[in-house]
């Protein structure tokens, strides 16, 4: 991984002006994605992960949205491109898979046609060439008997098969970056595993970078190289996946880890939950936005907004004001967070 990263997000903020006030959906987010790497973005609903992804694609079309920051892709700032120039990026260089495969395909067109459409828009293929490529893609994503299925309509496919079609579509133009926004959330568990494996295999095969957005840390542990944990529009912890799972630094990450049921540990009486509700994005608490829910909050948390920086020995970044020793001690004292 030499040279500049493929995709670099710098201090990205997105807010929406509403009647009730300004919603700060994404607040000063920075991360990088290198070629051939999987970045996992984790957070609960409303933490800003989907808005971040949609902003990378410049698909937030709300007239009340206000953006700041940079999205550098191959040296160009996507935020400065016109929507016309973005057409060359979307679907061709950066493509996206969405959460709900049941509704993400147009119900009135055959699936093959929908993949062809993207190929013809970007690659200038003839109808015949596009169809041949579509057949290859459908085979590559594991649709059995693609010749028979290419002319079927989306409603004739199961959820998992539709997501495979979406993945085929996403990869059709060999994108540099594939953004997968909760690609497995709407699927049942066995299908989830298949789809994740498929994304992992294809990512290596196509040498694309993947931004995997999920609320499921288990998914991240399985496929991501690096992880960004988002809370209330900000990244609170960011680092290499092994380090982050071995030595999580932020109490929010502890909470997330503690709320996973694990089959490789003795069974606890109850799964831990993070108490309270995520803050309103209209009026974020002063200082650390996790403070109201954090069992370890102290005076400084109220006064100071912690920056995302390297605070621990392992070198990954976190945004918690506790010292590394305090963190270790606090974490050891709460068994469910270990």
């Amino acid at each position, binding site marked *: 991984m030499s040279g500049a990263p493929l995709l670099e997000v710098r201090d990205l903020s997105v807010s929406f002006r509403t009647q009730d006030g300004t919603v700060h959906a994404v607040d000063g987010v920075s991360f990088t994605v290198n070629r051939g790497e999987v970045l996992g973005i984790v957070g609960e609903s409303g933490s800003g992960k989907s808005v971040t992804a949609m902003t990378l694609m410049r698909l937030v079309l709300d007239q009340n949205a206000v953006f700041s920051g940079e999205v550098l892709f191959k040296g160009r700032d996507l935020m400065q491109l016109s929507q016309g120039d973005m057409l060359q990026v979307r679907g061709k260089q950066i493509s996206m898979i*969405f959460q709900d495969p049941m509704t993400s395909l147009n*119900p009135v067109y055959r699936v093959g046609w929908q993949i062809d459409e993207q190929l013809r828009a970007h690659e200038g293929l003839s109808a015949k060439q596009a169809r041949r490529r579509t057949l290859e893609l459908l085979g590559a994503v594991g649709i059995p008997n693609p010749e028979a299925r290419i002319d079927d309509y989306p409603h004739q496919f199961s959820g998992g098969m539709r997501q495979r079609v979406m993945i085929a*579509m996403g990869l059709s133009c060999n994108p540099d970056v594939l953004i997968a926004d909760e690609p497995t959330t709407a699927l049942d568990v066995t299908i989830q595993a298949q789809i994740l494996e498929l994304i992992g295999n294809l990512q290596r095969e196509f040498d694309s970078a993947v931004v995997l957005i999920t609320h499921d840390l288990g998914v991240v542990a399985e496929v991501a190289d690096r992880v960004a944990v988002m809370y209330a529009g900000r990244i609170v912890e960011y680092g290499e996946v092994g380090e982050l799972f071995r030595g999580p630094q932020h109490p929010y990450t502890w909470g997330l880890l503690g709320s996973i049921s694990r089959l490789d540990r003795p069974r606890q009486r109850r799964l831990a939950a993070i108490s309270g509700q995520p803050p309103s994005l209209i009026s974020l608490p002063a200082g650390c936005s996790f403070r109201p829910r954090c069992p370890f909050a102290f005076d400084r948390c109220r006064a100071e907004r912690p920056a995302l920086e390297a605070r621990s020995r392992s070198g990954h970044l976190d945004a918690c004001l506790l010292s590394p020793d305090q963190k270790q001690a606090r974490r050891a004292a709460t068994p469910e967070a270990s």
Partner: protein
Amino acid sequence: MLTFVIRRMIATVFVVFTITVLVFLIFFHTPGVDPARKLAGRNPSPETIKAIKHQYGLDRPLPVQYVILMEKLFITRDLTSYSNQGQKVVPEIVAATPVTLSLVLGAAVIWVVVSIIMGVAAAVLRGTIFDPMLMVLALIGISMPVFWLGEMANLITQDRYHDTFLFSWVPPLGYTPLTQDPVMWFKHLVIPWLVLSVLYIGLYARVLRADLLETENEDYVRTARAKGLSERRVLLRHTLRTSMISFVSLFGLDFGVLVGGGALLVEVVFGLPGVGLLTYQSLISLDLPVIMATVIYGAIFIVIANAVVDVGYAWLDPRVRPA
């Protein structure tokens, strides 16, 4: 798809049969309605009524009367009017149908084209002043009664401003068949077309705009954008295509109703000798066989239009096609 079409046709035949039975019962055997009394003139003697009943077959059992009527209507086609004994009903309707079809088809072309343009424009221009302006315009169109609008059009084009260069080309009220003189046909019909289409332009533009805005939020429209398609292609191939589904079903119904006699007011106002005018005249003279025949004719058209819509619907939306 073929079995679907055939199934739909069988259903259509059944519906038409049911309608003929109902219409027959309503017009000939509703308590208080006695066709013989109507035919017998003022203060008839019981003997006269009896004779008339016998002459018209009204003293025979109900099913027999129904069969005779249907035979006269569909097979021998010699059902005659009560008020004008020489007038055969079926040829009258056959002669009136091209007039009504000319009127409704022309208006339909206008209203479909204009309402799609207006609806799409309003949806695209949402957030600007043009969207509410177009929708208020549509509302005005919906709010103007068609007979009033027609009379106003006549007042302007036939009377007040007929002698100006704007409207001197407008022929007197009436109709010329297309086969006889296409230019005259067009001149006769263009103002009725516009008058008839105004209401539907307003309705359809509003329905389409609402559907477009709703479809705009669908996940698959977001997918289409994420594919890197141009806004124009997203709009025409993805948003508009699925929004047309309710537009088409609405169109089929309205078209059927209009061809089936719903354009009555426009035909009366513009003196077009179509099925609507025929119905109007038979209603005034309570000419039961004519009313009966026009109602059945209208019902058949509506049912056929419905069947066509169902097939078109299946063509537009693969989800409703039979597996």
